[in-house]
Protein backbone atom coordinates (compact mmCIF):
# COMPACT_ATOMS: atom_id res chain seq x y z
CA UNK A 1 0.00 0.00 0.00
CA UNK A 2 1.45 3.37 -1.07
CA UNK A 3 0.36 6.46 0.88
CA UNK A 4 1.35 10.14 0.97
CA UNK A 5 1.20 13.09 3.35
CA UNK A 6 0.52 16.75 2.64
CA UNK A 7 4.06 17.36 3.98
CA UNK A 8 5.42 15.51 0.93
CA UNK A 9 6.41 12.18 2.43
CA UNK A 10 5.56 8.81 0.90
CA UNK A 11 4.97 5.59 2.83
CA UNK A 12 5.17 2.09 1.40
CA UNK A 13 3.34 -0.03 3.96
CA UNK A 14 4.05 -3.73 4.31
CA UNK A 15 2.34 -5.32 7.34
CA UNK A 16 2.96 -2.96 10.25
CA UNK A 17 6.20 -1.49 8.85
CA UNK A 18 6.21 1.60 6.63
CA UNK A 19 9.20 2.52 4.46
CA UNK A 20 9.25 6.34 4.42
CA UNK A 21 10.84 8.86 2.07
CA UNK A 22 10.22 12.24 0.47
CA UNK A 23 8.29 12.58 -2.77
CA UNK A 24 9.72 13.36 -6.19
CA UNK A 25 7.96 16.73 -5.97
CA UNK A 26 9.65 17.49 -2.62
CA UNK A 27 13.07 16.43 -3.93
CA UNK A 28 12.68 18.73 -6.94
CA UNK A 29 11.64 21.64 -4.73
CA UNK A 30 14.55 21.15 -2.33
CA UNK A 31 17.15 20.94 -5.08
CA UNK A 32 20.52 19.20 -4.75
CA UNK A 33 20.86 17.78 -1.25
CA UNK A 34 24.26 17.96 0.42
CA UNK A 35 23.42 16.60 3.88
CA UNK A 36 20.96 14.15 5.41
CA UNK A 37 20.52 13.43 9.12
CA UNK A 38 18.44 10.38 10.03
CA UNK A 39 16.83 9.34 13.34
CA UNK A 40 18.34 6.72 15.66
CA UNK A 41 17.17 3.14 15.19
CA UNK A 42 14.98 2.35 18.20
CA UNK A 43 13.79 5.93 18.69
CA UNK A 44 10.05 6.54 18.84
CA UNK A 45 8.32 9.42 17.10
CA UNK A 46 4.86 10.95 17.08
CA UNK A 47 3.01 11.91 13.93
CA UNK A 48 4.14 15.38 12.83
CA UNK A 49 7.34 15.35 14.93
CA UNK A 50 10.77 16.01 13.40
CA UNK A 51 12.26 12.71 12.28
CA UNK A 52 15.04 13.70 9.86
CA UNK A 53 16.77 16.78 8.44
CA UNK A 54 17.78 17.41 4.85
CA UNK A 55 19.94 20.30 3.66
CA UNK A 56 20.48 21.74 0.22
CA UNK A 57 23.26 24.23 -0.56
CA UNK A 58 20.85 26.97 0.41
CA UNK A 59 18.63 25.76 3.24
CA UNK A 60 17.78 23.16 5.88
CA UNK A 61 14.39 21.43 5.96
CA UNK A 62 12.78 19.03 8.42
CA UNK A 63 11.27 15.71 7.43
CA UNK A 64 8.33 14.87 9.68
CA UNK A 65 7.29 11.49 10.99
CA UNK A 66 4.13 10.64 9.06
CA UNK A 67 2.57 8.39 11.77
CA UNK A 68 3.27 7.31 15.36
CA UNK A 69 5.87 4.58 15.53
CA UNK A 70 9.39 3.29 16.19
CA UNK A 71 12.34 3.54 13.81
CA UNK A 72 13.47 0.00 12.96
CA UNK A 73 15.92 0.72 10.11
CA UNK A 74 17.54 3.75 8.43
CA UNK A 75 19.06 4.14 4.97
CA UNK A 76 22.75 4.88 5.57
CA UNK A 77 23.27 5.11 1.79
CA UNK A 78 21.59 8.56 1.64
CA UNK A 79 23.76 9.81 4.51
CA UNK A 80 26.85 8.73 2.60
CA UNK A 81 25.51 10.12 -0.70
CA UNK A 82 22.65 12.62 -0.27
CA UNK A 83 22.32 12.97 -4.07
CA UNK A 84 20.57 9.56 -4.06
CA UNK A 85 17.51 11.36 -2.69
CA UNK A 86 17.48 13.60 -5.77
CA UNK A 87 18.15 10.84 -8.29
CA UNK A 88 15.71 8.23 -6.91
CA UNK A 89 13.51 9.81 -4.21
CA UNK A 90 10.79 7.17 -4.25
CA UNK A 91 13.17 4.21 -4.51
CA UNK A 92 16.82 3.95 -3.43
CA UNK A 93 16.50 7.34 -1.71
CA UNK A 94 14.20 6.06 1.09
CA UNK A 95 14.83 7.49 4.58
CA UNK A 96 13.73 5.08 7.30
CA UNK A 97 11.46 2.18 8.18
CA UNK A 98 8.84 2.88 10.80
CA UNK A 99 7.09 0.20 12.85
CA UNK A 100 3.60 1.66 13.16
CA UNK A 101 1.92 1.83 16.56
CA UNK A 102 -1.42 1.43 14.83
CA UNK A 103 -1.35 0.46 11.18
CA UNK A 104 -5.00 1.44 10.76
CA UNK A 105 -3.87 5.09 11.11
CA UNK A 106 -2.42 4.82 7.60
CA UNK A 107 -5.90 4.63 6.11
CA UNK A 108 -6.38 8.34 6.80
CA UNK A 109 -3.34 9.36 4.70
CA UNK A 110 -3.56 10.50 1.07
CA UNK A 111 -3.55 8.04 -1.77
CA UNK A 112 -1.45 8.72 -4.85
CA UNK A 113 -4.27 10.39 -6.82
CA UNK A 114 -5.10 12.73 -3.91
CA UNK A 115 -1.42 13.64 -3.47
CA UNK A 116 -0.97 14.36 -7.16
CA UNK A 117 -4.00 16.64 -7.04
CA UNK A 118 -2.49 18.43 -4.03
CA UNK A 119 0.81 19.26 -5.75
CA UNK A 120 -0.86 20.03 -9.05
Amino acid sequence: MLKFTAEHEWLKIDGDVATVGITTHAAEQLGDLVFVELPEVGSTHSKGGDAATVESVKAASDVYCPLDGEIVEVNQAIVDDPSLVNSDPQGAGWFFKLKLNNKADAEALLDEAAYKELVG
Partner: protein
Amino acid sequence: MDVVSDLKRTPLHDLNVSLGARMVPFAGYEMPVQFPAGVLKEHLHTRAAAGLFDVSHMGQVIVRARSGDNADAARALESLVPVDVVGLGEGRQRYALFTAGDGGILDDLMIANRGDHFFVVVNAACKDADFAHLEKHIGDSCELTMLTDRALIALQGPRAETVLAELWADIAGMRFMDVRACDLHDADCIVTRSGYTGEDGFEISIPADRAERVCRHLLDHPDVMPIGLGARDSLRLEAGLCLYGNDIDTTTTPVEAALEWAMQKVRRTGGDRAGGFPGAETILAQLTSGAARRRVGLKVEGKAPVRPPAKLYADAEGKTEVGHVTSGGFGPSIEAPIAMGYVPVALAAPGTPLFAEVRGKYLPVTVAALPFVANSFKR
Protein backbone atom coordinates in the same frame (compact mmCIF):
# COMPACT_ATOMS: atom_id res chain seq x y z
CA MET B 1 -3.83 40.00 -1.12
CA ASP B 2 -1.52 39.22 -3.99
CA VAL B 3 1.89 39.73 -2.44
CA VAL B 4 3.76 38.94 -5.64
CA SER B 5 2.25 41.97 -7.37
CA ASP B 6 3.96 44.25 -4.83
CA LEU B 7 7.35 43.03 -5.95
CA LYS B 8 9.34 44.91 -8.55
CA ARG B 9 10.68 43.17 -11.63
CA THR B 10 14.04 43.61 -13.31
CA PRO B 11 14.39 44.32 -17.04
CA LEU B 12 15.46 40.67 -17.36
CA HIS B 13 12.36 39.24 -15.69
CA ASP B 14 10.85 37.74 -18.84
CA LEU B 15 14.19 36.24 -19.85
CA ASN B 16 14.67 34.71 -16.39
CA VAL B 17 11.19 33.17 -16.46
CA SER B 18 11.69 31.86 -20.01
CA LEU B 19 14.91 30.16 -18.86
CA GLY B 20 12.94 28.28 -16.20
CA ALA B 21 14.06 30.29 -13.17
CA ARG B 22 12.46 29.71 -9.80
CA MET B 23 11.56 33.25 -8.77
CA VAL B 24 11.57 34.36 -5.12
CA PRO B 25 11.08 37.68 -3.33
CA PHE B 26 14.42 39.35 -2.54
CA ALA B 27 14.93 42.96 -1.40
CA GLY B 28 11.56 43.96 -2.84
CA TYR B 29 12.18 42.28 -6.21
CA GLU B 30 11.12 39.06 -7.83
CA MET B 31 14.52 37.45 -8.41
CA PRO B 32 15.78 34.12 -9.79
CA VAL B 33 17.08 31.98 -6.91
CA GLN B 34 17.99 29.13 -9.25
CA PHE B 35 17.57 27.88 -12.79
CA PRO B 36 16.77 24.28 -13.81
CA ALA B 37 20.42 23.20 -13.49
CA GLY B 38 20.23 23.84 -9.73
CA VAL B 39 22.47 25.65 -7.25
CA LEU B 40 25.21 23.00 -7.16
CA LYS B 41 25.73 22.81 -10.93
CA GLU B 42 25.37 26.58 -11.35
CA HIS B 43 28.05 27.16 -8.72
CA LEU B 44 30.50 24.66 -10.24
CA HIS B 45 29.84 25.92 -13.77
CA THR B 46 30.75 29.47 -12.72
CA ARG B 47 34.07 28.24 -11.29
CA ALA B 48 34.78 26.13 -14.39
CA ALA B 49 33.46 28.28 -17.29
CA ALA B 50 31.21 31.36 -17.07
CA GLY B 51 28.01 32.24 -15.22
CA LEU B 52 25.59 35.04 -16.09
CA PHE B 53 23.83 36.76 -13.17
CA ASP B 54 20.95 39.25 -13.19
CA VAL B 55 21.80 41.73 -10.43
CA SER B 56 19.59 44.53 -11.73
CA HIS B 57 17.98 44.89 -8.29
CA MET B 58 21.13 46.64 -7.09
CA GLY B 59 21.23 50.43 -7.03
CA GLN B 60 23.21 52.32 -9.70
CA VAL B 61 23.88 55.94 -8.80
CA ILE B 62 25.67 58.72 -10.67
CA VAL B 63 27.46 61.28 -8.47
CA ARG B 64 28.41 64.43 -10.38
CA ALA B 65 29.99 67.55 -8.85
CA ARG B 66 27.83 70.66 -9.30
CA SER B 67 31.08 72.60 -9.77
CA GLY B 68 31.93 70.46 -12.79
CA ASP B 69 35.21 69.43 -11.12
CA ASN B 70 35.18 65.67 -10.45
CA ALA B 71 37.65 66.18 -7.59
CA ASP B 72 34.85 67.94 -5.70
CA ALA B 73 32.69 64.82 -6.08
CA ALA B 74 35.63 62.70 -4.84
CA ARG B 75 36.03 64.90 -1.77
CA ALA B 76 32.27 64.78 -1.12
CA LEU B 77 32.25 60.97 -1.29
CA GLU B 78 35.26 60.84 1.05
CA SER B 79 33.13 62.56 3.70
CA LEU B 80 30.95 59.42 3.80
CA VAL B 81 33.46 56.54 3.37
CA PRO B 82 36.79 55.64 5.08
CA VAL B 83 38.26 55.07 1.64
CA ASP B 84 40.67 56.91 -0.71
CA VAL B 85 38.37 58.28 -3.42
CA VAL B 86 40.46 61.36 -4.27
CA GLY B 87 43.33 59.06 -5.23
CA LEU B 88 41.15 56.75 -7.30
CA GLY B 89 42.30 57.22 -10.89
CA GLU B 90 40.04 57.77 -13.84
CA GLY B 91 38.86 54.41 -15.18
CA ARG B 92 39.36 52.68 -11.83
CA GLN B 93 36.92 51.22 -9.30
CA ARG B 94 37.22 50.55 -5.56
CA TYR B 95 35.28 48.81 -2.77
CA ALA B 96 33.91 51.17 -0.11
CA LEU B 97 31.70 51.35 2.97
CA PHE B 98 29.15 53.92 4.08
CA THR B 99 29.86 54.24 7.80
CA ALA B 100 27.62 55.49 10.62
CA GLY B 101 28.53 57.93 13.42
CA ASP B 102 29.14 55.06 15.85
CA GLY B 103 31.46 53.23 13.42
CA GLY B 104 28.80 50.76 12.20
CA ILE B 105 28.32 49.99 8.51
CA LEU B 106 25.30 51.42 6.64
CA ASP B 107 26.12 49.60 3.40
CA ASP B 108 29.01 48.35 1.30
CA LEU B 109 29.37 49.60 -2.25
CA MET B 110 31.56 49.98 -5.32
CA ILE B 111 32.79 53.40 -6.44
CA ALA B 112 34.08 53.90 -10.01
CA ASN B 113 35.79 57.03 -11.35
CA ARG B 114 34.30 57.71 -14.79
CA GLY B 115 36.32 60.88 -15.42
CA ASP B 116 33.59 63.51 -15.20
CA HIS B 117 31.51 61.70 -12.54
CA PHE B 118 31.51 58.74 -10.17
CA PHE B 119 29.44 55.61 -10.82
CA VAL B 120 28.35 53.98 -7.58
CA VAL B 121 26.73 50.55 -7.12
CA VAL B 122 24.97 49.81 -3.83
CA ASN B 123 22.98 46.92 -2.35
CA ALA B 124 19.34 46.51 -3.38
CA ALA B 125 17.93 46.43 0.16
CA CYS B 126 19.80 49.63 1.08
CA LYS B 127 19.53 51.65 -2.12
CA ASP B 128 16.75 54.02 -1.09
CA ALA B 129 18.36 54.69 2.30
CA ASP B 130 21.76 55.13 0.60
CA PHE B 131 20.33 57.61 -1.89
CA ALA B 132 18.70 59.61 0.93
CA HIS B 133 22.02 59.49 2.82
CA LEU B 134 23.87 60.85 -0.22
CA GLU B 135 21.22 63.56 -0.81
CA LYS B 136 21.34 64.66 2.82
CA HIS B 137 25.11 64.87 3.16
CA ILE B 138 26.50 65.70 -0.28
CA GLY B 139 23.39 66.82 -2.20
CA ASP B 140 24.49 70.46 -1.96
CA SER B 141 27.77 69.85 -3.77
CA CYS B 142 26.78 66.94 -6.00
CA GLU B 143 24.01 66.11 -8.42
CA LEU B 144 22.77 62.59 -7.63
CA THR B 145 20.93 60.38 -10.08
CA MET B 146 19.58 56.89 -9.44
CA LEU B 147 19.70 55.02 -12.74
CA THR B 148 16.34 53.23 -12.77
CA ASP B 149 16.36 52.55 -16.51
CA ARG B 150 19.38 50.25 -16.59
CA ALA B 151 19.89 46.57 -15.95
CA LEU B 152 23.00 45.25 -14.20
CA ILE B 153 24.45 41.85 -15.04
CA ALA B 154 27.54 39.97 -13.94
CA LEU B 155 29.50 37.57 -16.13
CA GLN B 156 31.82 35.61 -13.87
CA GLY B 157 34.27 32.75 -14.25
CA PRO B 158 37.48 31.73 -16.04
CA ARG B 159 35.81 31.89 -19.48
CA ALA B 160 34.17 35.30 -18.90
CA GLU B 161 36.95 37.23 -20.66
CA THR B 162 36.89 35.01 -23.76
CA VAL B 163 33.10 35.15 -23.99
CA LEU B 164 32.86 38.91 -23.58
CA ALA B 165 35.74 39.46 -26.02
CA GLU B 166 33.52 38.01 -28.74
CA LEU B 167 31.17 40.97 -28.21
CA TRP B 168 33.82 43.56 -27.46
CA ALA B 169 37.43 43.03 -28.55
CA ASP B 170 38.88 45.66 -26.19
CA ILE B 171 37.97 43.69 -23.05
CA ALA B 172 41.37 42.00 -22.75
CA GLY B 173 42.98 45.37 -22.06
CA MET B 174 41.03 45.71 -18.81
CA ARG B 175 42.50 44.54 -15.52
CA PHE B 176 40.82 43.85 -12.18
CA MET B 177 38.84 46.91 -10.97
CA ASP B 178 39.03 48.80 -14.27
CA VAL B 179 35.88 50.53 -15.54
CA ARG B 180 35.18 51.36 -19.20
CA ALA B 181 32.33 52.54 -21.38
CA CYS B 182 31.66 50.14 -24.22
CA ASP B 183 29.25 49.39 -26.98
CA LEU B 184 27.78 45.88 -26.88
CA HIS B 185 25.51 45.34 -29.88
CA ASP B 186 24.55 49.02 -30.03
CA ALA B 187 23.89 49.12 -26.31
CA ASP B 188 25.71 51.86 -24.41
CA CYS B 189 27.22 49.87 -21.52
CA ILE B 190 29.44 50.50 -18.50
CA VAL B 191 31.74 47.54 -17.86
CA THR B 192 33.80 46.91 -14.72
CA ARG B 193 36.21 44.02 -14.28
CA SER B 194 34.95 42.96 -10.87
CA GLY B 195 32.38 40.74 -9.22
CA TYR B 196 31.17 38.86 -6.17
CA THR B 197 32.34 35.30 -6.78
CA GLY B 198 36.13 35.32 -6.31
CA GLU B 199 36.47 34.59 -10.03
CA ASP B 200 37.72 36.86 -12.77
CA GLY B 201 34.74 38.49 -14.39
CA PHE B 202 32.75 41.58 -15.30
CA GLU B 203 29.76 43.55 -14.16
CA ILE B 204 27.91 45.32 -16.96
CA SER B 205 25.35 48.12 -16.70
CA ILE B 206 23.06 48.05 -19.76
CA PRO B 207 20.13 50.25 -20.88
CA ALA B 208 16.99 48.36 -19.80
CA ASP B 209 15.59 48.05 -23.32
CA ARG B 210 18.80 46.44 -24.62
CA ALA B 211 19.52 44.18 -21.65
CA GLU B 212 17.68 41.06 -22.80
CA ARG B 213 19.32 41.17 -26.21
CA VAL B 214 22.83 41.46 -24.77
CA CYS B 215 22.10 38.63 -22.33
CA ARG B 216 20.75 36.38 -25.08
CA HIS B 217 23.97 36.92 -27.05
CA LEU B 218 26.01 35.95 -24.01
CA LEU B 219 23.79 32.92 -23.26
CA ASP B 220 24.17 31.74 -26.86
CA HIS B 221 27.80 31.01 -26.03
CA PRO B 222 28.21 27.34 -25.00
CA ASP B 223 30.38 28.35 -22.02
CA VAL B 224 27.68 30.52 -20.43
CA MET B 225 24.93 29.35 -18.08
CA PRO B 226 22.37 31.52 -16.23
CA ILE B 227 23.04 31.57 -12.48
CA GLY B 228 20.62 32.38 -9.65
CA LEU B 229 21.01 34.09 -6.29
CA GLY B 230 21.49 30.71 -4.57
CA ALA B 231 24.80 30.05 -6.28
CA ARG B 232 25.72 33.73 -6.03
CA ASP B 233 25.56 33.28 -2.25
CA SER B 234 27.60 30.06 -2.12
CA LEU B 235 30.20 31.54 -4.51
CA ARG B 236 30.67 34.71 -2.45
CA LEU B 237 30.82 32.67 0.78
CA GLU B 238 33.65 30.52 -0.59
CA ALA B 239 35.36 33.76 -1.69
CA GLY B 240 35.08 35.07 1.90
CA LEU B 241 33.07 38.11 0.79
CA CYS B 242 30.62 39.83 3.13
CA LEU B 243 26.87 39.85 2.56
CA TYR B 244 25.41 43.12 3.86
CA GLY B 245 22.69 42.40 6.42
CA ASN B 246 24.36 39.12 7.43
CA ASP B 247 28.11 39.55 7.89
CA ILE B 248 28.16 43.34 8.16
CA ASP B 249 25.50 45.79 9.33
CA THR B 250 25.04 48.80 11.60
CA THR B 251 26.23 46.74 14.61
CA THR B 252 29.60 45.80 13.06
CA THR B 253 32.54 48.12 12.38
CA PRO B 254 34.88 47.75 9.39
CA VAL B 255 37.70 46.64 11.71
CA GLU B 256 35.54 44.02 13.43
CA ALA B 257 34.54 42.84 9.94
CA ALA B 258 38.22 42.38 8.97
CA LEU B 259 37.85 44.95 6.19
CA GLU B 260 41.00 46.94 7.03
CA TRP B 261 42.22 46.34 3.47
CA ALA B 262 39.38 48.59 2.24
CA MET B 263 40.70 51.58 4.24
CA GLN B 264 43.78 53.04 2.59
CA LYS B 265 46.60 54.63 4.61
CA VAL B 266 45.77 58.15 3.45
CA ARG B 267 42.47 58.02 5.41
CA ARG B 268 44.04 56.48 8.54
CA THR B 269 45.71 58.23 11.49
CA GLY B 270 48.85 59.93 10.16
CA GLY B 271 47.55 60.01 6.59
CA ASP B 272 47.15 63.23 4.59
CA ARG B 273 43.35 62.98 4.69
CA ALA B 274 42.95 61.02 7.94
CA GLY B 275 39.42 60.79 9.31
CA GLY B 276 36.67 63.07 8.11
CA PHE B 277 34.11 60.26 7.65
CA PRO B 278 31.26 59.19 9.97
CA GLY B 279 32.48 57.06 12.88
CA ALA B 280 36.13 58.05 12.29
CA GLU B 281 36.88 58.30 16.01
CA THR B 282 35.84 54.70 16.68
CA ILE B 283 37.18 53.22 13.45
CA LEU B 284 40.60 54.95 13.57
CA ALA B 285 41.02 53.91 17.22
CA GLN B 286 40.21 50.31 16.29
CA LEU B 287 42.65 50.45 13.35
CA THR B 288 45.38 51.40 15.85
CA SER B 289 44.43 49.23 18.84
CA GLY B 290 42.26 46.52 17.34
CA ALA B 291 38.65 45.64 18.04
CA ALA B 292 37.35 43.19 20.66
CA ARG B 293 35.89 40.78 18.11
CA ARG B 294 36.61 39.80 14.53
CA ARG B 295 34.94 38.21 11.53
CA VAL B 296 36.58 34.86 10.75
CA GLY B 297 36.15 31.93 8.42
CA LEU B 298 35.01 28.62 9.93
CA LYS B 299 35.67 25.17 8.50
CA VAL B 300 33.10 22.70 9.73
CA GLU B 301 34.16 19.16 10.61
CA GLY B 302 31.69 16.56 9.41
CA LYS B 303 29.05 17.15 6.78
CA ALA B 304 26.29 19.12 8.53
CA PRO B 305 26.07 22.72 7.29
CA VAL B 306 26.24 25.38 10.01
CA ARG B 307 23.94 28.27 9.17
CA PRO B 308 23.29 31.69 10.72
CA PRO B 309 22.54 32.52 13.48
CA ALA B 310 24.15 29.40 14.99
CA LYS B 311 25.84 30.17 18.30
CA LEU B 312 29.57 29.51 18.71
CA TYR B 313 31.08 28.09 21.88
CA ALA B 314 34.59 27.62 23.24
CA ASP B 315 33.69 24.19 24.63
CA ALA B 316 31.89 21.08 23.38
CA GLU B 317 29.26 21.29 26.14
CA GLY B 318 27.86 24.67 25.15
CA LYS B 319 28.88 26.39 28.41
CA THR B 320 30.89 29.36 27.14
CA GLU B 321 29.22 31.22 24.29
CA VAL B 322 31.80 33.23 22.33
CA GLY B 323 30.01 34.44 19.20
CA HIS B 324 27.72 33.48 16.37
CA VAL B 325 27.66 32.51 12.71
CA THR B 326 26.65 35.24 10.22
CA SER B 327 26.86 33.24 6.96
CA GLY B 328 27.11 29.53 6.41
CA GLY B 329 26.23 26.66 4.15
CA PHE B 330 27.76 24.10 1.88
CA GLY B 331 30.70 25.09 -0.30
CA PRO B 332 30.24 23.14 -3.55
CA SER B 333 33.82 23.75 -4.79
CA ILE B 334 35.44 22.58 -1.56
CA GLU B 335 32.77 19.90 -1.05
CA ALA B 336 32.36 20.73 2.63
CA PRO B 337 30.31 22.99 4.86
CA ILE B 338 31.83 26.41 5.54
CA ALA B 339 30.77 29.47 7.52
CA MET B 340 31.79 32.93 8.67
CA GLY B 341 31.11 34.45 12.07
CA TYR B 342 32.29 36.79 14.80
CA VAL B 343 34.52 35.66 17.68
CA PRO B 344 36.68 37.43 20.31
CA VAL B 345 40.12 38.32 18.87
CA ALA B 346 41.76 35.88 21.27
CA LEU B 347 39.92 33.10 19.41
CA ALA B 348 40.32 34.52 15.88
CA ALA B 349 43.61 32.84 14.90
CA PRO B 350 43.34 30.22 12.13
CA GLY B 351 43.36 26.75 13.65
CA THR B 352 41.44 27.74 16.80
CA PRO B 353 38.95 24.98 17.65
CA LEU B 354 35.38 26.09 18.42
CA PHE B 355 31.93 24.48 18.53
CA ALA B 356 28.78 25.51 16.69
CA GLU B 357 25.31 24.70 18.02
CA VAL B 358 23.20 22.93 15.38
CA ARG B 359 19.88 21.36 16.38
CA GLY B 360 21.00 20.95 19.99
CA LYS B 361 24.39 19.42 19.14
CA TYR B 362 27.79 21.09 19.45
CA LEU B 363 29.65 20.46 16.20
CA PRO B 364 33.42 21.00 16.03
CA VAL B 365 34.52 23.85 13.75
CA THR B 366 37.96 25.38 13.16
CA VAL B 367 38.79 29.02 12.51
CA ALA B 368 40.11 29.20 8.94
CA ALA B 369 41.83 31.85 6.83
CA LEU B 370 39.64 33.59 4.23
CA PRO B 371 38.99 33.14 1.37
CA PHE B 372 38.14 29.43 1.38
CA VAL B 373 38.74 29.30 -2.39
CA ALA B 374 41.66 31.32 -3.78
CA ASN B 375 40.51 34.19 -5.98
CA SER B 376 41.61 34.43 -9.60
CA PHE B 377 41.42 38.16 -10.33
CA LYS B 378 43.38 39.51 -13.34
CA ARG B 379 45.37 42.19 -11.51
